[in-house]
């Protein structure tokens, strides 16, 4: 079946639950078969399938709960500056801690998690992600940039407890 493993992996990341992921994938295939007439030949089949899956997720109970916070698609963070010594990346690889990375991705807001996974795991182009998420490419770029920054911030060891990025810790829209 086309995209079966990839869609399941993405669904599980979104729902964070095996049974819900299975339901989501099943519903996606059913909808795809029913609605194939809406698929325009020559357009991106993969993005179309992921869009169905994502839209189905967003209207599910878990999806609605996960997306209570709406992302603010402005790019107010400014450019990231180089870090001279310890960086989240080097620390990550020193510890070879894939599980920690997975947990950190799990904890990202769903809007960050999905764009990061579509880019890095599914290796979608910005254009494909834009079609999948139904947002402009500029939004894809800014959301991706902030997702990566948040991930790096959260992987960076904090000298004191409770010093996480304030916007994210408070769960405000600005953080998203």
């Amino acid at each position: 079946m086309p995209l079966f493993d990839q869609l399941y992996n993405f669904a599980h990341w979104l729902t964070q639950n095996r049974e819900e992921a299975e339901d989501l994938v099943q519903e996606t295939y059913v909808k795809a078969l029913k609605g194939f007439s809406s698929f325009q030949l020559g357009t991106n089949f993969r993005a179309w399938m992921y869009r169905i899956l994502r839209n189905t997720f967003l209207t599910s109970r878990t999806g609605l709960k996960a997306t209570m916070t709406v992302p603010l698609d402005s790019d107010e963070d400014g450019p990231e500056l180089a870090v001279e010594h310890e960086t989240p990346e080097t620390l990550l690889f020193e510890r070879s801690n894939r599980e920690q990375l997975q947990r950190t991705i799990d904890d990202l807001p769903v809007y960050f998690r999905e764009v990061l996974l579509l880019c890095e795991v599914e290796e979608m182009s910005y254009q494909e992600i834009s079609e999948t998420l139904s947002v402009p490419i500029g939004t894809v770029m800014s959301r991706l940039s902030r997702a990566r920054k948040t991930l790096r911030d959260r992987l960076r060891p904090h000298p004191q407890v409770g010093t996480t990025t304030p916007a994210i810790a408070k769960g405000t829209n600005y953080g998203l």
Partner: protein
Amino acid sequence: MVCESWKEKLDTYLDGELQDQDMRTFDVHVRTCPSCSADALERVQMKRAIQVAGKRFTPTAEFRSRIQKSIATKPRRSFQLGWILATAATVILVAGALTSAYLGNRSARDLAYQNHVLSEIADLHVETLASSSPVDVISTDRHTVKPWFQGKIPFAFDLPELKNSEFSLLGGRMTYLDQAPGAHLIYDVRKHHISVFVFQERSVPARLEEDSVAPKKLSFNMETWSQGGLRYFVIGDASAADIDSLAKLFKAGS
């Protein structure tokens, strides 16, 4: 701050999303700037870590079977998606039946593995051709396509010289078979697209017959062999003779 304007675009550069001219300019800069090259290296490592960590969940065999059954009972198979799914399902079923006869003395487990691998290869082929951007590196030049895989897959392989042949290279992309990275090349012969997959032999879970050729009755013609520690698959809807010709070019060139 040094290179601030470059660093703003670093992720876009590493995602391969800058314009061609900007990509070239960035290439030159990164090679000559220690700060940006160190930053780029770290971010590439992070990208790879996310890529590996992101391939985390695998559907159960029971769920796969359930979905296949539920799709098989859907009435609207005349749609193209139905056709694609039906083709893949046919490949799985027919491959199962015919390879059982072909490899009569193999254990049931090996056969199940082999069917799984062959059907996955057929799925990868169909899925890629269904995409509007089937290749990530678009080039007819093997000297462009081969280096593109450098650093992306943990092995090297040779692409055959196509002079005086009817085949033309369209490009390539990375692919995965049971979480193992590999190369996927797409060739064209008389408007038929043929996929060539290359994986490390040890990463292919099935013990496949040497030089096994899938029978002609399959929806796709397929050929697979092992050479130099690598496992090759050639698959497409072109004639068996074309598949064989392309396979021979690879065998001679590897």
